[in-house]
């Protein structure tokens, strides 16, 4: 970026070579030095073989997005050179295993080659071939001027639980690389990874971490989640923390069971959630309506990936917005939120549990792969201001309990089986106690009661979008989800451009969006889908038609460079 000094290091190799783990180690080293980091990874839907890449962007200031080119490479296979040829920056550095005969001839840019006996140094440390990545990282931090001790300390923290021997071998591998680099390339050492004057303690997290941690912090009691990319890490984190925090994670037989189990647990009085990607959400659709009809609180996370059917399992997309807004037959109230980064994912997840309880209806939180799996540094999440709100809820026996009693705000007192209160949580249309009813007055009053909850929600909650940048600008970008990062990154170069970021999709903040957009000189709607679904929603809710839709649906996120070019072309008109 023109206005920010960002150093980018990429590690490329085969799936199974520990590419992502090595990138995360570097991210944590940089964070411990007081830097800000953003990691970006690309990988196919494979476990072994295939090509994996992680790019770690490091800066003194916050980094929001990946870059199209990289300054420093650790290449652990020939494919890194073949696949990413265009991303090698002029005068970039390349660390590679000197025992491998990689073909560098296609790189037509000036590059500093660092042939290192990675396999040998790894074996010398008592490690296997796979530890070449640790050796290479030792080389990299030597060449970038970092202190070896900080790497060794991190390896102790990361591998301590695996035993002394594992720590020792890893530390030796790191040291072998570090020493070799200084012995052979001391003159090429740069001062990039120096310790900043002020080092704030930060966490390196992605939205999967954030959703799981947010759920735990918000008092999650039950989760049923069927594995699916890109959200499987949510269930991994929940599964490994359930005994410590006392909640239950259950792996169900399918997504239909997932949502029905979560609804059952919620009906019994437990704070409950499920999570999936678009295909799994397709199976959950009937359960969504059950939660709404029985007025049962439930939080559903949809981690979006591109395409219908199996699509592109390990890539990112934003094609599910209309799907989650309309999924299921008939009319019912639903709350739909969309997170733009891990921080928002954390707070929106926490909020989602309160909203589900208060309005007794499904709350869907949209995230996309681009934030699900890309770790960023940020301050520790602050939960001080959060208070659990279960809304109108009792476990006590009521004198005259009517589960679906009519009320002005549409919300009735909720209770649980075993409380002594009789009710039928009924998927059929029902009267106030829950008995089946086909009486016109019950049909009309219950439908109206349910739908009123959304009006109550819109009135009580702050659903407004956030405007980044100047109040008045030559160009306004409107978008949602993970595009936020690349847009904010690009905006650093454009003082006369602002960004309207939406996190509430239902109830839709129509007045607030109209108030901003009707004053704009020029609007670009930016989305990772084919049909510009947000632009359609904005038109439906505000009457404002956005004609410049900047769209991408190839599974890759928008890069700041692309937004930069787009803005330049618009501003030159």
């Amino acid at each position, binding site marked *: 970026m023109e206005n920010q000094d960002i150093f980018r290091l990429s590690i490329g190799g085969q799936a199974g070579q520990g590419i992502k783990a090595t990138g995360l180690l570097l991210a944590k080293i940089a964070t411990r030095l007081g830097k800000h980091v953003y990691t970006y990874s690309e990988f196919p839907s494979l476990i072994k073989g295939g090509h994996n890449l992680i790019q770690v962007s490091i800066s003194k200031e916050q980094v929001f997005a990946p870059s199209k080119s990289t300054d420093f490479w650790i290449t652990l296979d020939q494919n890194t050179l073949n696949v990413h040829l265009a991303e090698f920056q002029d005068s970039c550095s390349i660390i590679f295993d000197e025992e491998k005969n990689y073909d560098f001839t296609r790189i037509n840019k000036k590059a500093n080659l660092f042939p290192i006996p990675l396999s040998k140094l790894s074996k010398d440390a008592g490690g296997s071939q796979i530890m070449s990545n640790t050796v290479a990282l030792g080389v990299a931090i030597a060449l970038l001027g970092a202190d070896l001790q900080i790497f060794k300390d991190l390896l102790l923290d990361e591998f301590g639980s695996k035993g002394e021997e594992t720590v020792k071998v890893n530390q030796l591998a790191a040291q072998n690389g570090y020493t070799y680099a200084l012995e052979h390339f001391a003159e090429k050492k740069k001062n990039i990874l120096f310790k900043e004057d002020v080092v704030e303690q*930060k966490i390196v997290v992605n939205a999967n971490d954030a959703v799981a941690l947010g759920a735990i912090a918000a008092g999650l*009691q039950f989760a049923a989640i069927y594995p699916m990319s890109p959200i499987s890490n949510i269930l991994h984190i929940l599964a490994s923390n359930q005994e410590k925090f006392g909640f239950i994670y259950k792996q169900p037989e399918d997504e239909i069971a997932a949502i029905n189990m979560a609804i059952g*647990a919620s009906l019994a009085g437990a704070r409950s959630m499920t999570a999936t990607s678009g295909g799994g959400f397709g199976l959950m659709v009937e359960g969504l309506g059950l939660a709404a009809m029985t007025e049962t609180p439930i939080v559903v996370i949809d981690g979006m990936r591109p395409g219908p059917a199996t699509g592109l399992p390990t890539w990112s997309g934003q094609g599910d917005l209309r799907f989650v807004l309309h999924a299921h037959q008939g009319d019912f109230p639903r709350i739909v939120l969309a997170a733009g980064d891990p921080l928002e994912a954390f707070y929106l997840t926490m909020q989602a549990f309160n909203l589900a309880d208060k309005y007794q209806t499904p709350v869907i939180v949209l995230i996309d792969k681009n934030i699900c799996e890309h770790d960023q540094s940020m301050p520790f999440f602050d939960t001080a201001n959060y208070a659990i709100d279960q809304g109108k809820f009792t476990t006590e026996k009521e004198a005259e309990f009517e589960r679906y009693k009519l009320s002005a705000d549409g919300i009735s007192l909720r209770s649980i089986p*075993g409380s002594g209160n009789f009710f039928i949580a*009924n998927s059929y249309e029902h009267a106030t106690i829950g008995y089946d009813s086909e009486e016109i007055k019950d049909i009309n009053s219950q439908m109206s009661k349910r739908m009123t909850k959304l009006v109550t929600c819109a009135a009580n909650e702050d659903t407004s979008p956030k405007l980044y940048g100047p109040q008045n600008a030559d160009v306004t970008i409107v978008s949602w989800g993970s595009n936020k990062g690349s847009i904010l990154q690009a905006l650093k170069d454009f003082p006369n451009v602002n960004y309207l970021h939406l996190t509430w999709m239902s109830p839709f903040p129509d007045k607030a969006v109209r108030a901003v957009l009707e004053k704009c000189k020029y609007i670009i709607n930016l989305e990772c889908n084919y049909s510009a679904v947000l632009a359609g929603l904005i038109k439906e809710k505000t009457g404002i038609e956005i004609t410049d839709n900047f769209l991408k649906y190839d599974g890759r996120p928008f890069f700041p460079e692309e937004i930069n070019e787009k803005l330049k072309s618009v501003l030159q008109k």
Partner: protein
Amino acid sequence: MFYKNKMTLITDLTTSCSPTWCPGCGDFAIWAAFKNAAVAQDWNNLNTVLTAGIGCHGHLLNYVKIASVEGLHGRAIPLATGIKMANSRLNVFVFTGDGDSLAEGGNHFINACRRNHDITVILHDNAIYALTTGQTSPRSPHGFKSKSTPSGNIDEPISPVSLAIASGATFVAREYASHIPQLSELIVKANDHKGIAIIDVLQPCVSFSDLYTHDFYQQNTYYLSKDYDATNQTKAFEKSLEWGEKQIPLGIFYQVEKPSYEDQIIQIAQRPLVDKPPTKKDLSEIFKKYS
């Protein structure tokens, strides 16, 4: 049958709704048998929850005054298991049908059996889709003529008893709906059993099928002998395949003691999950792992 006390009276279970089942429907008998068991065992709004899928059976929830959940077609079992995991103190009953649990919800039926959730499943087995006015079900025999199979059913039927035994259920039984006292007793035994209990309840559909009638079941069922060994899974499976003239066994086919799913969850070893309200959690220890 053992009567725990007289806290719950039959009148306490009465609701303001009148049954809409056809006169002669087996659901009346199952309803009566369940209510008798509930009175005997003092099942009420402090200790019990009922769930149902969609089908004629599901209407039963309107006629028993115990808190209940009418779920979606085929999905009563995952609902019930979610409830049980959240509040393991409750007696959890699933009313379901042959279409509900063998077609639409087959996957849930199999998986709940193998997990041994501590719930009782009462499967209203009329071998036809009745609520949708008479189509073939997974229990309808080969050659069965119905609105969906006018030239005769090509599919072979499946036995819920065989399926439950094969799937690892730890209590598998069959009764004929109109044997009301015996069915009540069986429902009590099923609820007392630790782990999943499946009761296949044979019932006629008086409106849409003249195949499996009251007469048919009265003439062709028999009780498993007193020396039948219900702990032998292979023998039980073999027995479950028996079906024909004078050849329909009733009783407990299979019962073994195994820890239930809920017994094995450490988090609820001391008390049910919902005994405590949700509490905000401090994450500072976890955050350290991310730095």
